[in-house]
């Protein structure tokens, strides 16, 4: 099983075309292993990114440095997955 302990999902509300461009650069950067659940396209729609624990600090710094507003949508991905797995197992029983 792949574990997602400490991984977070950030919801980003880009406010300008400049923000969108910066987020696109982030998307092209394979090094941080980001998983874009919704992609940067316009300021109308939020961008949701699943960020591995190891990249959290760097990504948050990047966003703060460029004054891109965001909030934590899922605080610990693994906790939610564990709850879901429990539900599936309980139902199977």
């Amino acid at each position, binding site marked *: *099983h792949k574990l997602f302990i400490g991984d977070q999902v950030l919801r980003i509300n880009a406010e300008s075309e400049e923000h969108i461009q910066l987020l696109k650069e982030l998307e092209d950067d*394979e090094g941080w292993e980001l*998983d874009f659940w919704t992609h940067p*396209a316009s300021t109308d729609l939020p961008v949701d990114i699943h960020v591995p624990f190891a990249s959290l600090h760097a990504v948050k710094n990047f966003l703060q440095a460029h004054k891109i507003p965001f909030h934590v*949508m*899922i605080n610990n991905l693994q906790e*939610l*997955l564990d709850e879901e797995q429990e539900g599936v197992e309980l*139902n199977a029983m």
Partner: protein
Amino acid sequence: QERNARSFNFGAYHTLDTIYSWMDTLVAAHPNLVSKVQIGTSYENRPMYALKFSTGGNKRPAIWIDAGIHAREWVSTASAVWMADKMATDYGVDPSVTSLLGQMDVYLSIVTNPDGYVYTHTSDRMWRKTRSVNTGSVCRGVDPNRNWDAGFGGPGASKNPCSDSYHGPHAHSEIEVKNVVDLVQSHGNFKAFISVHAYSQLLMYPYGYSCTSVPHQAELDSVGRSAVQALSSLYGTSYKVGSICKIIYQASGGSIDWSYDIGIKYSFAFELRDTGRYGFLLPANQIIPTASETWLGLKHIMEYVRDHPY
């Protein structure tokens, strides 16, 4: 094992085996309406099924619905299970469904990416793609919604096999995509093609590979808006309606662009709940509300297709 359709828990997420087994119970409960059609096998050799709802006739005008092409979008598959049951049980009870199935066939693929779905249960809950091996790469899988022959390889798809939006080596390289393509083309009389995804709460029509409007933009937009009105009437869930390119982002190689370009005018894609904090991990207690509201939107589109033959 779920032993019959009645005892099945629609408000829960299930494994592939349980869903496949439940399909048999549905067919057994409605033998004159529902059949299970094997449309091929997946990369890892799992059978791929579509439930065929038909009251007879040969190659009647038909509606294609697929769910779960992106493995991690569990609520799409769970909603399709609920809607399959709803369609079967409402036939002969709801005049609209009865009339629809009196004139048209409906094909419903509940798990369109079975390998990926199993992988989300066993190894990586966040997996999106197929599980095919990419020659020369350590990364597996192709995004099956970038793999259709519609602006293939264009903007909004990645050429990197490690990307979640990798388009694959060539159009229809993924057997899961090819199976649907072959079924739709050999049938030749599909009038609507609807893909069910999650999440974001959107109802979209072509194009994704281009930001130009399709010739039927006005009609599709109007149908989409009415469908969303029907959907929202249940819980007030808010949806956006528009072309893929205009309301999310440019994305080439998508299923409904392919279906539209081969002449299936009524091509739509749903993105189900939620916009909140759960993403692909929508709590199971929201499955039935999600399916119920989606059914209203879907039914509206199907009624429109029935009433506007072309």
